[in-house]
């Protein structure tokens, strides 16, 4: 039995009498410990798909199962790292993570254990030095690190990343990609990551799920990325496997499913 199974999922948003089909017949299975990235043009419903897995939106038809149990509401077993960090600005970095840890482990762990767990997760993203700062006092990259720490601290079965580095500059993004690869190597956690960055998809993922353009977007192609881990961005830059994977994704996005802008 597969770990996460997305089976014949359709999603339509109703606006008045008209319903717009956003996702059409999505079928995808993800194994435990796998890192899958989903790529597609903006507006193709990538984020909607992630929200469905997170339980923040409900499927119209079809079913999503995690470890055989149907997903129909949000929960900490499917922690989300949001695009714009979504830290609560009135809480310190520590308290932001603490909110999640207290809620998830409040009944099962002692205060000291929870404190150690918070610091361990902050250490995982190298943010212990800013534990007492508020989100407004740290940089965008740091905020995103804290967002990842908060999600990891829930000990999720699957980590959902919604374009987590989209708003960051290229150098900061590279640092955070390395951090995510490092965490994945250590924790062997299952991840789904939405991205619109081809290099990011190839670098991080075991499989790249490419989506066709909406409306009624579906999975166009799934590309396995077989390069050995740990992956090093500099060594990969000239490697044929990397270049082939990159080319395949580019061809999909820019030849076969080029985004046709509506005439304005």
């Amino acid at each position, binding site marked *: 039995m597969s770990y996460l199974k997305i089976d014949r999922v359709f999603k339509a948003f109703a606006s008045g009498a008209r319903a717009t089909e956003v996702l059409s017949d999505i079928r995808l299975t993800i194994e435990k410990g796998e890192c899958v990235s989903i790529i597609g043009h903006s507006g193709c419903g990538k984020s909607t798909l992630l929200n469905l897995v997170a339980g923040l939106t409900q499927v119209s038809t079809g079913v999503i199962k995690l470890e055989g149990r149907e997903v129909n509401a949000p*929960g*900490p077993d499917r*922690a989300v790292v949001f695009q714009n960090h979504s830290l609560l*600005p009135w809480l310190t970095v520590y308290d932001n993570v603490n909110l999640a840890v207290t*809620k998830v482990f409040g009944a099962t762990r002692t205060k000291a254990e929870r404190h150690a767990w918070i610091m361990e997760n902050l250490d995982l993203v190298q943010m212990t030095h800013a534990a007492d700062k*508020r989100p407004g006092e740290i940089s965008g990259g740091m905020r995103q690190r804290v967002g990842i720490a908060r999600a990891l601290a*829930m000990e999720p079965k699957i980590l959902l990343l919604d374009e987590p580095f989209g708003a960051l500059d290229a150098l900061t993004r590279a640092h955070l990609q390395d951090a995510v690869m490092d965490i994945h190597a250590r924790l062997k956690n299952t991840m789904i990551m939405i991205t619109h960055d081809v290099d990011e998809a190839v670098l991080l993922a075991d499989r790249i799920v490419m989506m066709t353009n909406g409306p009624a977007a579906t999975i166009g192609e799934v590309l396995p990325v077989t390069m050995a881990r740990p992956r090093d961005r500099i060594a990969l830059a000239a490697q044929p496997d990397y270049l082939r994977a990159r080319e395949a994704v580019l061809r999909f996005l820019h030849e076969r499913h080029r985004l046709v802008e509506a005439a304005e």
Partner: protein
Amino acid sequence: MMAVTALKPKAAVAAPAKTADVVRLATPIARPARVAGKVLRFVGENVAPPMIVLMILLVIWQVAASGDASGLPSPSDVWAQSSELILDPFFVYGTQDIGLGWRVLTSLERVAYGFGLAAIVGVLTGAAIGQSIWLMRGLDPIFQVLRTVPPLAWLPISLAAFMDSAPSAIFVIFITAIWPIIINTAAGVRAIPQDYRNVAAVLRLNQIEFFFKIMVPAAAPYIFSGLRIGVGLSWLAIVAAEMLTGGVGIGFFIWDAWNSSRLTDIIVALVYIGVTGFILDRLVGWLGGIIARGTTA
């Protein structure tokens, strides 16, 4: 201002790096001069202009009210007839003959009950309305109408409902203050970003946790601007409320002074009410500034 704030951190950073005596020389000279300059500037910018304008207004008032035909007392009449009320706010000569300071405190207690109740009920109601689109659609038009009803108009109804003057007075204050609190809280709750709601959903926060951990801090700036308007309105309602209750409040004092034609006393009481209202407004504004500090970051 700019130069002062720019100097401070520089000195603090330079202290460990440079030799100690440089700092030791600079601080004792700079600090008193800086403080004196600040005080002078504050007086020049904030105290002097209103004082000068006040003087001018008093002179105009004196001239205008000096004629024989004038029905209103001039500032010098006020001083001649009511100086005791001005000079000693806290005298006690008998149960009904006490200083205006005591009267203000009695009124403040009444406002505290009415406003405190309005704050609790208003924030809770506003939160519910902000959360539910149907409650909003149903109640908002009604509130928009009710909030324009003047405090005095509530008097007969509350008297009929409570059959007693003390709770009626508190009700009048309550009903006057509650509308801006409800409306602002609802607006603040509606303005909570979807991201925070998603975080709460993923964490499975229950209603109470969501209220205290997300809703109140996120909506704090809105809630406090509602409370600030509310405290102003509840102080406005005090005269209306105390026409009922009698006793020793500042509102009743005005009503009583009017009935016994002590116009100068009324003028002194007006100044007391104005100053107290100003202090209340600043107090809630200051409190809101402290509590809402984190949310705007």
